């Protein structure tokens, strides 16, 4: 069938529908390297505006760090631009193996396999290691990439209420007749900024003979005393069977991800994970950049310590100003507004004040739980956060939401 008027209309109608629901996403052009202060064109083509960035996953501020940039340059010189191959044909260089070794060491696991992204790692891992005799039991707030991965896998899927250990225990009891059980969770939840109770999860998994899977993308590099992730924070290093994580956030912010964990599982991924088998190897530039990132964060905890201080300052400032924030231990701080339109209006006003933060609402978060998600970085200096806080307070006053309860905000603006 040709791409005729009728076909075009099918898509045009769907796009219109997204616009009328207010969920049509528009990109903003950043005219600078990623940092705590950036120049943005929004809408694209309009005048550039300098804003403080409160929505990047650049937790350790390494995305544009001179040492990382230099390492990437050197990588380009000595190992070239691309490999024009998947890993198992002729796409594995010495540096890929070195990065896998270093990640294994950093995460405290048995072995690691690189993927083009953590999305790919999550999309490939379940199908590679589970069958229809097994069950996957996931926290209801896991990342979309995990859900996609579970959908590609023939094992039965089930879920438990967010961080509800009693519910998880019920589900583990329910599935005792399966060959293998796997508890699946994010380490740090991307929309709520809280950590999975990994100590409890490991305890239940041991009691009910289940494996534990953690996507630590929003924690790797800064959670835990030396930044190894949520498993370090909960003192369960070595007890998580599978960790997936990304090089696209704290660990340099470029791209790439991995599955790290039990050596047989990693080997199964090398043999069977389709996104590993059928997509290109991670580019040498990224590999060299990531190696340098691991070196930087292994020689000092300075950056994760600064991020922790920034997060504490920010949480305290917002709370004292009278905002409702989600409690948590991470650099993700959601400011709860409950009403979808209010979240968009507040984000727009913040932008006018020079603060770039994004409002999220259903279906990205549950209905009636719209919020502005703010994210801290070690690249933020105190003056950035003070300015951002002043802007939040100004906008909060305008909408008269400071010091108000959830019910009072809902009464005023609706769910």
């Amino acid at each position, binding site marked *: 069938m040709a791409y005729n008027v009728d076909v075009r209309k099918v898509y045009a109608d769907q796009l219109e529908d997204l616009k009328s629901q207010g969920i049509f996403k528009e990109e903003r052009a950043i005219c600078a390297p990623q940092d705590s202060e950036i120049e943005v064109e929004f809408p694209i083509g309009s005048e550039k505006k300098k804003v403080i960035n409160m929505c990047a996953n650049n937790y350790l501020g390494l995305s544009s760090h001179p040492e990382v940039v230099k390492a990437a340059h050197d990588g380009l010189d000595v190992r070239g631009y691309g490999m024009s191959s998947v890993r198992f044909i002729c796409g594995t260089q010495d540096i890929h193996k070195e990065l896998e070794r270093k990640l294994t060491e950093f995460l405290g696991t048995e072995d690691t396999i690189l993927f083009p992204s953590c999305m790919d790692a999550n999309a490939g891992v379940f199908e590679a290691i589970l069958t229809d005799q097994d069950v996957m039991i996931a926290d*209801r707030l896991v990342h979309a990439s995990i*859900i996609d991965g*579970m959908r590609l896998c023939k094992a*039965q*899927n*089930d*879920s438990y*209420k*967010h961080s*509800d250990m009693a519910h998880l225990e019920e589900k583990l009891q329910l599935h005792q007749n399966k060959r293998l059980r796997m508890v699946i969770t994010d380490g740090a939840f991307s929309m709520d900024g809280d950590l999975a109770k990994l100590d409890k999860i490991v305890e239940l998994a041991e009691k009910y003979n289940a494996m534990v899977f953690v996507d630590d993308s929003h924690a790797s590099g800064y959670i835990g005393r030396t930044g190894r992730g949520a498993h370090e924070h909960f003192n369960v290093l070595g007890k998580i069977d599978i960790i997936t994580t990304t090089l696209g956030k704290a660990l340099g912010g470029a791209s790439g991800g991995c599955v790290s964990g039990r050596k047989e599982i990693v080997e199964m991924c090398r043999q069977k994970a389709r996104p590993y088998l059928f997509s290109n190897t991670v580019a040498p530039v990224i590999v060299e950049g990531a190696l340098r990132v691991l070196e930087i964060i292994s020689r000092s905890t300075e950056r994760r310590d600064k991020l922790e201080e920034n997060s504490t300052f920010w949480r305290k400032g917002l709370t004292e100003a009278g905002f409702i924030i989600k409690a948590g231990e991470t650099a993700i701080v959601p400011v709860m507004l409950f009403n979808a339109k209010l979240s968009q209006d507040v984000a727009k006003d913040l932008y006018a004040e020079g603060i770039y933060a994004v409002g999220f609402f*259903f*279906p990205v978060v*549950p*209905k*009636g739980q719209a919020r502005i998600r703010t994210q801290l970085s070690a690249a933020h200096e105190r003056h950035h956060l003070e300015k951002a806080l002043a802007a939040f307070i100004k906008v909060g006053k305008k909408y008269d939401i400071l010091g108000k309860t959830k019910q009072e905000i809902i009464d005023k603006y609706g769910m």
Partner: protein
Amino acid sequence: MASIKDTILQYVKNEYLETDDDREITYDTPLISGGIVDSFSMVSLKVFLETKFNIQIPDAKASPEAFDSVNNIVNLLKEFSVKE
């Protein structure tokens, strides 16, 4: 003994509402389109129905529409000779 309707309603409340979620759910409350049950966690509801009433619901029948309210589910169950 609780009616089929109430058994399902109770399950939905226990399974899907967080402890601090005070939303009222009735027989007609839209579960999936209302954002209470997402299409992913709908699976546990299907497994519950199959186990509880000893039936097999083919995937084609387990549509978001068929599961969108307790009343819809009761109607679906009638097809499998499960009656009030």
